[in-house]
């Protein structure tokens, strides 16, 4: 997630980007040192109230933007329990932001398939304990299924799906020693927990249902 925040912070006009959890406060923050911690915390909580109340009235809210004469704020969901808040001076190109998030998340995923040492060397250690899991992930049928799942998640969650999918996949693969019906169902359950919306969960399951024949 740090890489994603760094990439967003590097966009023109972005002065601060942060990730926060309503229960645990700010998880990570890039920029925004001019704001006091208390004030920023109050703003984050207020934005989260906008989002959660708004989502009760309209289940398909994907982002909230506040425009002031000299600056802008936006809040969007980063996962089922976390939000991303962006402060930017000029109007931010939403397409550029979405592409930046997707690109950073996918880049992180490619590196995340390897341990840090392996990633830097660009090679796979044949004796690494994760080898078996990685090999399972690379099998054609599993690779296709995961791709279908990510696409379906993108349909129901938008650009943040790339981050959510990669985080969930990493957590899931850490506890898997074989890919079978039960482990796939566990991954689906973990993704549904992240979606956290019954209507969207139903859509997600409908989208992946035709691709669930794993052997």
């Amino acid at each position, binding site marked *: 997630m740090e890489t994603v925040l760094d990439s967003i912070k590097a966009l023109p006009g972005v002065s601060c980007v942060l990730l926060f959890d309503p229960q645990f406060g700010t998880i990570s923050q890039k920029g925004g040192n001019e704001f006091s911690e208390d004030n920023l915390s109050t703003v984050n909580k207020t934005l989260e109230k906008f989002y959660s109340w708004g989502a009760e009235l309209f289940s398909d809210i994907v982002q909230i933007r506040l425009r002031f004469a000299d*600056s802008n704020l936006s809040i969007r969901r980063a996962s089922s329990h976390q939000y991303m808040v962006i402060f930017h001076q000029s109007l931010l190109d939403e397409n550029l932001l979405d592409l930046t998030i997707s690109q950073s998340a996918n880049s992180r995923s490619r590196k995340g398939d390897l341990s840090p040492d392996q990633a830097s060397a660009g090679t796979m250690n044949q004796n690494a304990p994760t080898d078996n899991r990685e090999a399972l992930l690379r099998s054609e049928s599993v690779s296709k299924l995961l791709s279908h799942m990510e696409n379906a998640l993108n349909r129901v969650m938008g650009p943040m799906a790339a981050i959510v999918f990669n985080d969930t996949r990493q957590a899931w693969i850490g506890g898997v020693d074989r890919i079978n019906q039960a482990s796939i169902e566990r991954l689906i359950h973990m993704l549904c927990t992240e979606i956290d919306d019954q209507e969207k969960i139903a859509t997600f399951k409908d989208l992946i249902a035709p691709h669930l024949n794993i052997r």
Partner: protein
Amino acid sequence: MATVQDFTNIKKIDGIKSYYLVKYDGKGLAFHGDNADNLFPFIAFAGLNCDTIRSLLGLSEFKHMVFSRQSQEDILLFGFSNYFLAVIKEANASADDLIPKIDDFIETIKKSSTASQLH
């Protein structure tokens, strides 16, 4: 002198599906759309807290707020005097095109009202 009735003309702006005019205390003054009883307090809450955020962060004047939705029927919220105006746009309308038109509409209403009161 502007009246609440003047606000019904906002429906004449192309791309607006619904609108809700709310006083700062959450009392609904006029609307065209669904679920008004639940939306009025939410609109006032959001509008009032925008000013709180502005003050906490030392920002300048609040302009508007946009709730982007997957359906593209985004909700646009504006504040003026003691009132908040929320608009739900048509899915095929552009928020960027609508916002200046709504700003102009509000300016016209403000110019023709006295003492920041609608009648």
